[in-house]
């Protein structure tokens, strides 16, 4: 074999260049998008814009505020998280710790979760309208209020429930991975001391898996904060004079507001600054929600590390 420089070097350099170019392209695209939003949106964002309401005029850049949308988005994400995390974690615990790995039931559940992750979000919106709003809400009304409309209409709680179903696969998959990463030796050590399975899961397995579970919650928040389709039929409102007072009220939402501004405005040129400002706030808010979750996870990791040494 001759150790010749040349051909391989050239190909290698070409390949390195191609991968670097592909990476740069993505970075550049992101920079253009973010730069565009920041450039055009920054001027619109002010304290009045963030804390103001819509009553003065929704399509007037001088008067419009988006506080109701910020409030609605944050409330929605918080409610969604409260709903999705317990259900997702319990499902993942069942699948990894209790279910027999090769049973038909386990495979069916796993398949269902994967399919759920692939369903387009607008379908979740229709599902939420049919199931949560009409079936559950309407059912409650029949049961409790003799058919009087109370729960059977689009509401914050149904939008949050729909969003929770949408993000469920993310939480389940992340939690399952976190649980599987806990060494079997910990489980055996605990069981060999006469602990029950439940004690083992609660005291040894779940604490170890907590950072991974929080990662799942972060991904769910990231996904949930940006989705609009699932809430269009289940709770988001075009315009409301007041903030939602209860979970059965409708709400305004940043993402939906972007849709409203870009399709319903009487004068799109005049509305454009509000549009940019709203998108900028949505981006920052999503980042902040993510950041908060990342900080919580970092705190848990640090605590575990102290215990690990």
């Amino acid at each position, binding site marked *: 074999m001759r150790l010749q420089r040349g051909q391989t070097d050239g190909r290698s350099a070409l390949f390195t260049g191609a991968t670097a170019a592909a990476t740069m392209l993505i970075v550049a695209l992101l920079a253009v998008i973010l730069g565009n939003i920041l450039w055009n949106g920054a001027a619109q964002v002010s304290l009045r814009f963030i804390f103001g309401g819509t009553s003065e005029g929704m399509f007037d850049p001088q008067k419009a505020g988006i506080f109701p949308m910020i409030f609605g988005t944050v409330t929605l994400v918080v409610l969604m998280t409260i709903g999705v995390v317990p259900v997702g974690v319990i499902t993942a615990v069942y699948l990894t710790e209790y279910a*027999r*790995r*090769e049973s038909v039931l386990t495979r069916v559940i796993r398949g269902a979760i994967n399919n759920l992750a692939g369903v387009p979000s607008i379908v979740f919106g229709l599902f939420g309208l049919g199931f949560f709003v009409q079936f559950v809400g309407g059912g409650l009304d029949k049961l409790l209020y003799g058919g009087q409309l109370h729960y059977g209409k689009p509401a914050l709680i149904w939008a949050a429930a729909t969003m929770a179903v949408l993000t469920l696969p993310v939480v389940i998959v992340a939690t399952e991975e976190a649980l599987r990463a806990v*060494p079997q*030796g*910990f*489980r*055996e*050590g*605990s*069981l*060999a*001391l*006469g*602990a*029950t399975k439940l*004690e083992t899961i609660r*005291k*040894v397995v779940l604490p*170890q898996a907590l950072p991974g579970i929080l990662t799942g919650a972060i991904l769910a928040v990231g996904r949930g904060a940006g989705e609009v389709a699932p809430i269009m039929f289940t709770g988001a409102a075009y315009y409301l004079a007041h903030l939602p007072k209860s979970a059965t009220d409708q709400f305004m939402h940043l993402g939906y507001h972007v849709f409203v501004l870009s399709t319903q405005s009487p004068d799109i040129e005049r509305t454009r600054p509000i549009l940019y400002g709203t998108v900028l706030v949505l981006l920052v808010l999503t980042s902040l929600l993510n950041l908060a979750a990342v900080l919580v996870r970092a705190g848990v990791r640090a605590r*575990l590390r*102290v*215990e*690990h*040494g």
Partner: protein
Amino acid sequence: MDNAVFRIEQLNFWYGAKQALCDVNLTIRPNQSTALIGPSGCGKSTLLRCLNRMNDLIEQTRVQGRVLLHEQDVYAPEVDVIELRKRVGMVFQKSNPFPQSVFDNVAYGLRIQGVTSRSQLADRVEASLRKAALWDEVKDRLHDSALTLSGGQQQRLCIARAIAVEPEVLLMDEPCSALDPVATAKIEELIQDLKKDYTIVIVTHNMQQAARVSDYAAFFYLGRLIEFDTTTKIFTHPANRQTEDYVTGRFG
């Protein structure tokens, strides 16, 4: 035979279709240490894990025969596995302290049993660590993570954790296979001490270790018990040719 802690009768065990134990009959005597020896895959660890039913955790296994702990079949349907495991403790091949403090590790089993009094916990943790010959090394770092201890210390911590719940039998699955000679010597010394209070069953690949720490030795080959006798007899005048070949290092 009277005076037995465990009496294993005609025990057969399968992983799926693969038979791991064939017609094993064996008696474990109290306050003695019994070594299970044999080449890899001979079934000795499987047998050990039948004694506290750790094999229950593995899917698609099947047991036939009886494992009597003081004349009570541990595989009988009315047996509470949790109670069984409290009476029959286990130390694993790979030391597995929980990622908690030294103290919490030893207190784990006690808390499970409902001991909540701080002073009682402290007393029993100290007593267990002393018994495991670890107290002097860790008494100033009880609240440090168990994972800051050395490998040998971690294994002794696992022994302390197992004896804290005061079992009657201590099962040890190759407890020194991941340890250096100094740490191994300490554990072997400890096993000699622990015999006073516990019945010990130890699986080991190390023939010298079996000779040093055990009173009885059982040689397994391909899932069958080939020979069972006092350790002295097994290592000096084995009745069976295969046993002799194995303990003298001609195969295995």
